[in-house]
């Protein structure tokens, strides 16, 4: 597809990187030559210096033939006008990033009038992501597939788990019932475990299964699945704003600590049910006086990665069960896991994943491409969702007869109401939703998963 991205910021760059790797023709427009230089040197994309609002620049970028225009500059208004102009000049689809809560409420009107196909609000998406993590506190990462019928979670193995040190094939059936350990991260290594694999403490296990089965599994391995009821949030930015209202729906009580008193007043006005505290979130005395150690969860969402990290480590040391930190700039989440932070939230990644998912949906017309893709374990592995259709070359063949590409496994199959954790005798039927896990591989089409059929 011909894709134009306006705004070469964090999200724009990351989108361009992934989209060009997936064989789309990407053109980036930005006013800042420094940002463009980086993209021009590292990516196979075309860079145009100029204002994305200008018709001339858009035409130069080939907006008439463009299949998709993504407006991801730092300004909402700019994004809206860019998308509108792009649409009028002939872009087939438009996506705009609109993040101001004030606009967020009028979104449906805006979407229609501006001809937007998708609106992404990174902060709102991040808030929903946090809520998902809080509902499943033992997991460091939670993703949903097949409309929520299949869940994918990441759990860190601790020494007290009953499955430590036993080869997977010898694990009693009642522990590992109906779930699959898809990918394991040990140190910097990503492993697809086979029957001989023994889990060690410190491994990050990525588990696929039905939400209820995963819940049971966590209970059996002793990860507490106690519900989170109280949440402390440091940093009252936009994510905190959305999070406040989302948490209320899930019956969790929250308090937000914010350093700026004016912002506190605004938050108090828009979130009447949330306790707003004016103070410094890295100040231990303040956190203690707000009984940090009694909290079920702690989330640091300030604009500075360093502050977020300090507060998060502080919270973990005080005994908070679930600690989440927002990290925007740094791309190595594993460092932070080592420091005890349970989950890392990267709004850039969330936005990128969200848009990539949409783009893959658009290019759906030919062959059998992935419908949903999530990057997991530091973006080294991907979980993809496919729907088996007539073009799938291995329908109704028992899986044991298929030779899969190295580093690829079929994780789960959703067939009408059943969720199947596949074994050798299972087959893929037309219409099945299939979850595939890949490690350091680029798979775009379902048929690429299988090398050949074994007799």
């Amino acid at each position: 597809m011909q894709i134009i991205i306006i705004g070469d910021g964090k999200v724009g760059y990351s989108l361009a990187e992934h989209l060009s790797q997936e064989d789309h023709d990407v053109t980036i427009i930005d006013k800042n030559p420094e940002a463009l230089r980086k993209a021009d040197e590292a990516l196979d994309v075309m860079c145009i210096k100029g204002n994305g609002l200008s018709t001339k620049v858009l035409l130069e970028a080939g907006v008439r033939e463009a299949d998709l225009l993504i407006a991801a500059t730092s300004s909402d208004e700019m994004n809206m006008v860019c998308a509108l102009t792009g649409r009028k000049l002939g872009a087939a689809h438009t996506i705009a990033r609109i993040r101001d809560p004030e606009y967020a409420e009028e979104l449906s009107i805006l979407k229609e009038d501006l001809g937007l196909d998708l609106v992404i609000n990174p902060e709102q998406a991040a808030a929903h992501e946090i809520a998902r993590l809080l509902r499943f506190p033992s997991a460091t990462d939670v993703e949903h597939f097949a409309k929520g019928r299949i869940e994918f979670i990441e759990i860190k193995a601790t020494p007290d788990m009953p499955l430590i040190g036993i080869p997977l094939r010898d694990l009693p059936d009642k522990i590992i019932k109906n779930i699959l350990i898809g990918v394991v991260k040990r140190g910097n290594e990503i492993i697809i475990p086979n029957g001989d694999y023994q889990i060690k403490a410190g491994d990050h296990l990525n588990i696929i299964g039905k939400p209820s089965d995963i819940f049971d599994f966590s209970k059996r391995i002793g990860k507490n699945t106690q519900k989170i009821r109280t949440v402390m949030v440091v940093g009252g930015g936009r994510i905190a704003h959305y999070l406040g209202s989302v948490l209320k729906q899930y019956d969790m009580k929250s308090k937000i600590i914010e350093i700026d008193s004016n912002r506190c007043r605004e938050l108090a006005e828009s979130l009447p049910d949330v306790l707003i505290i004016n103070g410094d979130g890295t100040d231990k005395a303040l956190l203690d006086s707000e009984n940090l150690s009694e909290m079920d969860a702690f989330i640091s969402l300030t604009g500075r990665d360093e502050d977020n990290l300090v507060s998060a480590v502080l919270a973990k040391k005080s005994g908070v069960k679930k600690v989440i930190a927002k990290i925007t700039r740094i791309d190595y989440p594993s460092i932070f896991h080592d420091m005890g932070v349970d989950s890392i939230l990267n709004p850039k990644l969330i936005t990128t994943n969200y848009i990539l998912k949409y783009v893959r949906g658009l290019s759906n017309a030919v062959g059998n491409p992935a419908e949903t893709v999530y990057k997991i374990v530091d973006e080294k592995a991907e979980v993809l969702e496919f729907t088996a259709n007539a073009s799938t070359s291995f329908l109704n063949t028992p899986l044991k007869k298929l030779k899969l590409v190295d580093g690829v496994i079929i994780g789960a199959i959703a067939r009408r109401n059943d969720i199947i954790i596949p074994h050798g005798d299972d087959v893929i039927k037309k219409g099945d939703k299939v979850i595939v896990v890949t490690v350091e591989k680029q798979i775009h089409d379902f048929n690429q998963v299988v090398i050949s059929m074994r007799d």
Partner: protein
Amino acid sequence: MNIRMIIKTIGYLLMVEAGCMLPSLVVSLINQQNDTKAFIISIIFLTVLGFIMSEIPSRNNTFYARDGFAIVSLGWILVSVFGALPYVISGAIPSYVDAFFETVSGFTTTGSSILREIEGLPKGILFWRSFTNWVGGMGVLVMMISVLPAAGANTAHIMKAESPGPDPGKLVPRIGKSSKILYLMYAGLSLIMVVLLLLGGMPLYDTLIHAFSTAGTGGFSNRNLSVGAYNNIYFEIIIGIFMFVFGVNFTLYYQSLKGNLKSAIKDEEFRFYFFTVIAAIILITWNLRGTVFSTIGESLRHSFFQVNSIITTTGFSSTNFDLWPSFSKAILVLLMFIGGSAGSTAGGLKCVRCMLLFKTVKHEVRKVIHPRSVYNITYNGKTVDDSRISGVKTYFFIYMVIFSVALLLISLDGYDMVSNFTTVTAAISNVGPGLGVAGPFGSFADYSALSKLVLSFAMLFGRLEIYPLLILFAPTFWKKVNI
């Protein structure tokens, strides 16, 4: 520096060169003039060597700007070193230094020759000689990128280092596709030219030779007297027009094909190029009338051909312009420096650089009159960054430095100043013939081996626009960790 990756890429490049020899092999098979063996040996040698180099395992496949520069400069040197094989093996050019000079002159689209007697040589060899013009014009590495299936973002560094002009850009987002489009347009234009020459009654073999040399703006002919040998106005007009066409930035053709003819015509560089050509033709016609040629028509005919031939740095001749009056010769020498447009197959300083230099002068004058004035240099309606302007100034300076060094070394041979000056200009601007000893009907054969090597490198410096080759001489470039 990722040395393994550089070797691997050059391995692919040598295999591409072997592929480029195949058409010449076919021609030699058809004509049976004992040069077949030379091509077969060269092709097998290049394929085997290239294959071995390309099979070197590389730990990581990324390379950066300097690796791209290294690939381009080392690649061009090696391609020239091995491209000389057919000449030597077939015995057409017995001395290796001469053969190397001829190959460099071919690939850099210079068109200078050490041969005195061209017409007696085997047809396969002459075909290869012109074909190097054609491949070198658009770029050997650009061809490699367009042929290789997996051209990643990395290869952008290679394309940038090889493509002429101060700011080479892509036509479309994907580098592989860009290079394919470039070669398609290039081949398409060459084909049109072949057809037009055939319609005028030129033999097929001659049309191919002249189309290749015109497209690459090289100027190798298969006739001793170049295009003048035919004494045919139709051929001169067609070749003249196509020389002009190949001196235009190819981006403009792409824009026109996409239906944006208007902005292509409005392009500042194109206008500069066009009006320079018109002005030069008028001045030379005026100067020649009544002295060298008796009629205005005859003067116009030769000044039209010669101006296009020189400004695009092709170097074909329709007549011996060495006999023209000084004023006309001076204009031609100035045109050698200006050269064609950026992003074309022509050499020289390039119109856009000259234009930016003029604009800088205007800017400086203004600064003197209004010391506090704020003034942007614009090009095609867009402000040009200061870094690009200073890049152009530095380029001009270094061009002159290379020119002076080459001139000093050539002067050791003891020829007259005009010959030496124009010979070096012709080499570094990739024109081909100069004046005096190396004039249109002269030859470079009499220069010493040292001078031939110096001129070869001057041609490479001119074609690759100096920097890729210059970094080879920077000591830090060769260090693994360079600070």
